[in-house]
C-alpha cells in the first residue's frame, strides 16, 4: 500500500505524518494523532462538525484527502484555539451565553467562528450566519450561537494578538 510523508504544523506543534494519501484528514487527526476534538458528524460534508483550518481557511476534514494537505501546511483544530487569545474569548462567550447544548457541533462551529473573526471586516448577525452556514446544530436553533459570536466580536483581541 502506498504511503506519503507530510510535515505539518498543527496548533503550533510540528508533526511528521506518514499515511495512505487518500485517507481522510479527519482519520489522520483522530486516529493517528489522537486529536479527537474534531468530530465526525455526517461524514459526507453536510454538517461541518469536522471543520478545521488549513492555512487559515476552514475546510471539512471528512472530505479532505490527507495527501492533498501540502507539506508545510499550518493546521488549526479546536484543541489549538484554547491556546490563543481569540480562541479563549470565543470559548468564554459560548459558555457565558449557553451557546452549547449537546456540544457535538461546537468544535466545528467554533473553528468557523475563529476563522470569521480572524478575517476581520463587518461581523453582524448576517455575516455570522453566512460564515456558519456550513455548520449544522440540531439543538440550539442558532440564536445563542450567533449571540455568543457577536459578544466575542466585541471582545476580540486587537490586531496581531489574536493568533
Amino acid at each position, binding site marked *: 500500500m502506498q504511503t506519503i510523508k507530510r510535515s505539518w504544523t498543527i496548533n503550533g506543534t510540528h508533526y511528521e505524518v506518514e499515511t495512505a*494519501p*487518500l485517507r481522510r484528514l479527519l482519520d489522520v487527526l483522530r486516529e493517528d494523532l489522537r486529536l479527537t476534538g474534531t468530530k465526525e458528524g455526517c461524514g*459526507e460534508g453536510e454538517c461541518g462538525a469536522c471543520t478545521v483550518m488549513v492555512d487559515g481557511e476552514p475546510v*471539512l476534514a471528512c472530505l*479532505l484527502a490527507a*495527501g*492533498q494537505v501540502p507539506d508545510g501546511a499550518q493546521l488549526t483544530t479546536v484543541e489549538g484555539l484554547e491556546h490563543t487569545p481569540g480562541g479563549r474569548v470565543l470559548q468564554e462567550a459560548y459558555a457565558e451565553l449557553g451557546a452549547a447544548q449537546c456540544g457535538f457541533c461546537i468544535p466545528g462551529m467554533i473553528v468557523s467562528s475563529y476563522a470569521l473573526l480572524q478575517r476581520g471586516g463587518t461581523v453582524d448577525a448576517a455575516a455570522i450566519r453566512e460564515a*456558519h452556514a*456550513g455548520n449544522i446544530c440540531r439543538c440550539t436553533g442558532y440564536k445563542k450561537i450567533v449571540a455568543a459570536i457577536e459578544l466575542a466580536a466585541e471582545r476580540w483581541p486587537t490586531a496581531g494578538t489574536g493568533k
Partner: protein
Amino acid sequence: MHTPQTLAEVAVYFPEELDEALAALADESRRGQLLAGGTDLMVQWEAGVRPLPAQVISIKHLSELCGIADKGAVLHIGAAVTHRQLRESGLVRQYLPSLAAAAATVGGYQIQAMGTIGGSLANASPAGDLAPSLLVAEARIVVANQQRERSIPATTFWQGYRTVDCAPDELIVRVECPKLKPGYVEGWRKLGPRKAQAISKVMGSFRGAYDGAVIREFHVAIGSVAPTCIRLTELESWLVGQPLTAATFQEAERRARDTVQPIDDVRSTAAYRRWVTGRMIRGFLETWPR
C-alpha cells in the same frame, strides 16, 4: 488491476506540473481518476455510489490551473479556482455577476473553499449550480491532452446525464467566459430546501439586454429540470422583440412551464419544478432593472 476496498488502498499521483499530469493521462497504465477539491468524489467514494478507482491523479495544487485572468472581452478562469475565489473575485463579481452569485450559494463556507469550478463542471450534475451562468454567457470549456488544447462551447460540453465532452486522456484546464457587456444584465436564482448546504430543486440564470421598449436579447438556462442544465432556446427566441409588460411576463411564465420536462425525485416533484421554472422566468423579467 487490483480493486481497492477502502480509500486507504487507492494510489495517488501528485504531479508537480500540468505536463506531468497530461503525460500520466496519455499513458493507459498510469491513467487515473482526476481529483480536485474532492467535495463530490470523496462523498461518492465514501458512500459507495461510485466505485473506488485503482489510481487517482490529484490536480488541485497545479499552478497552471489556478487564477482568474482578464483577457479583454473574456475572463479566463482556471479549472482549480474555488467557489470561494469566484464569489470573492472583483473581476468575476463585476463581469460575471451571475456566476459569482451562484458560487456563493454552493454548500457553505467550507465546501466553497474546497470545491473547484473544474470539478463542478466535470461532475456534471444536472443540479450543478455553476452551469447555468456559463450557458447564458456562452462560455467555452477548454480541455487539454498532451498534444493540444480543445475549446468546447458550454452548450455542447454536457452531452447527457453526468456525461461530458472530455476524453480519458484530457482534463479541463480553464473556462473562457465572455464578460457582461455594457447595457446587459444578469440574474441568478436558486430554490432549495434551505439557503445553504442544499442541492437545488430548480435554479437558473439569465443574461439579456433591453432596447427602448423591447427585449433585444435574452439567454436563460435552468438546472435540475433535465438530464443536464439547459438553455430554453424557444422561449429565448419568442422573448426577443417583446415589450417588458405584464402580458409578456405571463406568457413567458406559461411557455417556460410548458417547455421543461423535469422528473419526480427525492428532492422535488416534476409538477412543482415546472411551476417554479415558470415563476423563476417571470421573476427574472419582472425584476429586470429599467
